């Protein structure tokens, strides 16, 4: 990647990050991404020499939660600093410029780094009516197409950009679609989550800078290294599931003892993400550790996948009415069948002809 300006290592040093701290970050990133330890120097070398890549960040139908998640870490981390260093060419939440000046910055970045810049998108794109979401009078669809045309790769950050997310929840009033539904001719990587884990974003960026390519993706376009295993498989409460020990309510003894939250609707078994291993807020905790079940936010359409507080084995909608009606229908049909059988029996009896020995002898 040939960009102008200081290298990432120079920028980090200016921010007061020691070489030891930097190498620690590289080692953590390598282990997070399941790369062999021998790759650490390669990552370090690549990151040290990488010029600040130009990143354009487009925000469409979203809540800014993804940006909040990535920038509001409690104390500035190397992840946060790397992210801030690379993401400032255009990001209309973070940049100081507004209006014409902001758009001019985007256009300048696109022109100067054509074919090389990374495009990060958060939020879904409304297809229902271009007026549902616009930036400087340009519809989200037009801006995405225009900006993606010169991008090296596109990263869809958050479940809205990756799958349509909350705006696409039924009945999807704006006709919201994910980035991958529009951009077909560029590598698109999904980093879903509501919001996604910051370290996943920086890990992926580090991978892009080191290998000049996106990491291996799964069926949903997610980097396998972070989304390869279910929350359930990596959950520290898993032994309680295996022992059949479950919290029944959020304040019972089981909940206080930290038992499994399956019965309270935890979606960990069907959710693929790194929460249980990397955790949040610099490894402090993650939802299940804080006593709440996983809501499955990194899975497509999680909002429409049944109630958040119903166990996975429970029916999504009440079935009693339908089953009751069907049973009543069965009883009525059964009664009708009984009448029919009875009538058949009676007509058979009526048609029954008695034959005597004399009749038989006559017939001879």
């Amino acid at each position: 990647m040939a960009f102008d300006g200081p290298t990432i290592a120079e920028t980090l040093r200016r921010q007061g990050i020691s070489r030891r701290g930097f190498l620690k970050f590289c080692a953590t990133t390598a282990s997070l991404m399941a790369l062999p330890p021998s790759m650490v120097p390669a990552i370090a070398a690549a990151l040290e020499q990488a010029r600040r890549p130009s990143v354009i960040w487009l925000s469409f139908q979203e809540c800014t939660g993804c940006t909040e998640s990535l920038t509001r870490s409690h104390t500035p981390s190397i992840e946060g600093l790397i992210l801030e260093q690379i993401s400032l060419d255009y990001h209309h939440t973070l940049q100081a410029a507004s209006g014409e000046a902001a758009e001019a910055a985007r256009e300048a970045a696109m022109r100067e780094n054509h074919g090389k810049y990374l495009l990060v998108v958060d939020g879904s794109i409304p297809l229902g009516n271009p007026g549902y979401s616009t930036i400087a009078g340009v519809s989200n669809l037009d801006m995405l197409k225009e900006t993606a045309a010169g991008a090296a790769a596109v990263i869809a950050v958050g479940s809205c950009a990756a799958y349509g997310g909350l705006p696409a929840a039924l009945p999807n009033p704006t006709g919201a679609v994910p980035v991958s539904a529009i951009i077909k001719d560029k590598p698109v990587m999904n980093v879903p989550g509501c919001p996604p884990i910051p370290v996943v974003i920086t890990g992926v960026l580090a991978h892009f800078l080191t290998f000049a390519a996106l990491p291996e993706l799964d069926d949903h376009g997610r980097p396998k290294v972070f989304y390869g295993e279910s929350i359930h498989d990596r959950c520290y409460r898993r032994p309680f599931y295996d022992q059949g020990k479950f919290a029944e309510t959020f304040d019972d003894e089981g909940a206080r003892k930290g038992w499994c939250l399956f019965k309270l609707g935890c979606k960990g078994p069907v959710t693929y993400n790194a929460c249980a291993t990397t955790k949040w807020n610099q490894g402090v905790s993650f939802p299940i550790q804080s006593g709440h079940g996983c809501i499955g936010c990194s899975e497509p359409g999680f909002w429409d996948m049944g109630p958040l507080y119903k166990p996975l084995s429970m029916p999504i909608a009440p079935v009693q009415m339908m089953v009751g009606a069907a049973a009543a229908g069965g009883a009525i049909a059964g009664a009708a069948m009984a009448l029919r059988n009875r009538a058949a029996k009676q007509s058979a009896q009526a048609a029954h002809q008695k034959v005597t020995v004399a009749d038989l002898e006559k017939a001879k």
Partner: protein
Amino acid sequence: MSNLELLTWARGPGLSIALAVCAFGILLRLFEIFSLGRKADLSKAREHSPGSGWRTIVSRSLPPPGLMKRAPVTYIGGYVFHLGFAITLFFFVPHIELVRGLTGLSWPGLPTQVVDIAAVAAILALIAVLASRLSNPVKRLLSGVQDYLAWLLTFLPLLTGYLAFHHLLIDYTLALALHILSVELLLVALPFTKLFHTVSVFISRWYNGDIFGRKGVAS
């Protein structure tokens, strides 16, 4: 359709349809069976035998003497399968949660290791009885499509449940979706195949016991 969407369909509309067909079919069959009635028995009862029907329900559930020698696979396989299946069905916590969700009733579950052993035993027993059915010429001659269909419909929920629980071969979400779908197939077929014995077994045993009691046969 993603795996999660398939699972959501299975937990939602799929389950409703399957339960509705099952409830409709069971009521239909029961009404039909009971309304057919039997010819009035005009002869005098051989002996007064109160409770003969109820005793037969128990006695016919126990192995008759000599069966172990005559048909060891049927004997062991049959019991192991039915017990293993019942333990897996009624004492696996997610299954109890399903019943609680549908009816509000619940009871304590067993540790998953115990359920796991029961499920494996039921699977092995099913394979053994199928092998015996195929290798024994008499059994093979007596078997029709419906027998193999009933076997398959019973086997699939056990297999997919086992794969889902152990995260084997296929993605868990897909395995869980297939598991629920296979159970829905079983529910749909239950009233209209030999699987209806799940509902009718004790009814017919009671009837047999009662009628034979009248005819002087000890239960």
